[in-house]
């Protein structure tokens, strides 16, 4: 098992190298002189020259890639042009809000999405099933930020129960932090929940037709026991897979959600960096987020063994 974990981790290295080169290469494949683009519309010739020198853009392309990769391998993601701080420091400062937002959204989506999918599959063709499916398709089509504003309007402006926006760090207490995160997390979870519910239903439908399920019912087990212990366990692989793959969607949604609710997370960091054309920050955030995404999917792969003992490495 341990060798397998290591093997899987090693397999992510080429993927991450491609990500690192791609993020860096973007600067060079987009039309125009990268130093001029980063310097912005009102820059003087000296500004452009200074940026070119600072980012090493005056060196041959392959040398630049080499330096970038070696820096990344040493955990150095460069310095922000705007604030002059190391990108890793900026990311560390902003990580808490994003991590707590996405974790909470994930808990909500899995906690509601899986049971809804199971129930819909069990009562296939019933009105409950139809309601869940309609909600799933609509949830999947929902513009995240629009939903956020609707929730703000209802639960923070019309009925002032929850804060309109802002963030309280976890250090200031669990409840103050949670209170600020409820609306953003619900907003963010809808798309992901829809995806999970739909996949759970599809996968459960495949399993519920099997003979052993009929047998389990025939020997008098309770529906709950059969659904969870016999059916869901065997239907869980595609669900776990979609939870891993869908994480990309969650991250995309987090960028927009953070903007709506003014959460000081990685999404806000990225959007601010885009306005300021602070490319080192943009490429640093993308690299870190992609690495997390890849790692989550490694964990999903490893979960297969736990969920299905037939799969051996």
């Amino acid at each position, binding site marked *: 098992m341990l060798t397998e974990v290591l093997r899987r981790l090693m397999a992510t290295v080429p*993927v991450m190298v491609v990500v690192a080169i791609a993020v860096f290469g973007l600067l060079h494949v987009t039309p125009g002189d990268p130093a001029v683009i980063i310097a912005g519309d009102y820059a003087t010739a000296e500004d452009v020259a200074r940026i070119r020198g600072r980012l090493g853009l005056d060196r041959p392309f392959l040398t630049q890639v080499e330096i970038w990769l070696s820096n990344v391998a040493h955990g150095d993601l460069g310095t922000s042009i705007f604030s002059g701080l190391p990108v890793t420091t900026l990311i560390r400062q902003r990580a808490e809000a994003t991590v707590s937002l996405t974790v909470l959204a994930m808990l909500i989506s899995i906690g509601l999405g899986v049971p809804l999918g199971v129930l819909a599959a069990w009562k296939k063709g019933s009105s409950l099933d139809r309601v869940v499916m309609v909600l799933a*398709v609509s949830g999947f089509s929902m513009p995240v930020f*629009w939903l956020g504003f609707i929730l703000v309007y209802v639960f923070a*402006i019309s009925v002032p129960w929850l804060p309109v926006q802002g963030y309280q760090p976890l250090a200031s207490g669990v409840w103050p932090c949670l209170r600020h995160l409820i609306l953003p997390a619900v907003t963010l979870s809808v798309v992901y929940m829809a995806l999970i519910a739909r*996949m759970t239903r599809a996968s459960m439908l495949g399993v519920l037709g099997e003979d052993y399920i009929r047998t389990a019912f025939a020997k008098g087990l309770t529906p709950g026991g059969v659904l969870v212990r016999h059916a869901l366990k065997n239907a869980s692989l595609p669900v776990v897979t979609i939870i891993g793959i869908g994480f990309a969607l969650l991250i*995309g949604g987090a*960028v*927009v959600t953070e903007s709506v609710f003014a959460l000081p997370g990685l999404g806000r960091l990225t959007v601010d960096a885009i*306005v300021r054309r602070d*490319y080192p920050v943009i490429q640093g955030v993308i690299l870190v987020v992609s690495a997390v995404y890849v790692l989550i999917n490694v964990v999903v792969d490893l979960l297969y063994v736990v969920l299905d003992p037939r799969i051996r490495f």
Partner: protein
Amino acid sequence: MSSSIRASDSELGGGPGEARAELALEHGWLETLGRSVGRQPMFVAGAIVLALIVLAGALAPVWWTGDPLQMKPDRRLLRPSAARWFGTDHFGRDVYTRTIYGTRVSLAVGTAVALASLLLGGALGLVIGFSRRLDRIAMRVMDGLMAIPSILLALALMALMKASVRNVIVALLIPEIPRVARLVRASVLSLREHLMVEGARALGVGTPRILLRYMLPALVAPLVVQGTYICASAILFEAYLSFLGAGTPPVIPSWGNIMAEGRAYVQLAFWIILFPGLFLAATVLAINLVGDGLRDILDVR
């Protein structure tokens, strides 16, 4: 992007769609098609809503709209009323007019991204699927590109390009190409083992002809379905980019940037956000329903 998730959703069910059109031909394809469409009320509903929205955008000047850019400072932030259905924004511009005109950007971006990604990704997938030497390296590169969440990749591209509708299309297109290529490659790999391809090869048919005459027809159905999902998510992502200020420039009204400008007035004038968002949600939902329906009708697994 959502399309990749859908793709993996369908991959779970087994291989790619095969040439089932031939089967339908024997039974009178029109009849078969009519019957399977009749069984899909959601598809019909989606298609009707989509048709209405296309009409709304295409004939925008006809629908009692005014000038989407005209500012009337004396009519700022007016509530929706009989005269101004969706109210006015902070410059006194008519939100109804702007929303109807915004349809154009969304539909143009969705269609362009879907068509271009199918074309480019499809061509790439065909080539990769047929060249064993290229396959290993190309798939590594694709895996790497697909590890970057689409929104972030599109945002990074927009940071490096000027804000314009064309650049939004490019930025949303690039993350989709590897996903389409991957789908097509998987189909080509399994079709390569298909009897009809083996037979054609035995008869001495060349590779380009096999690709065009034997594989492409079998790929049409899965690509059409994939295209609708790409279109839906491109429309959604255009709105995200514009909302974040990295998309369609403010001089062209788009649902995303109307809402971005309205966000400062959430408490005073909620209608600026409400109506464009309703249109956006309805459009994306309609296209997704059409996609789901097509998937069942064309029997793409």
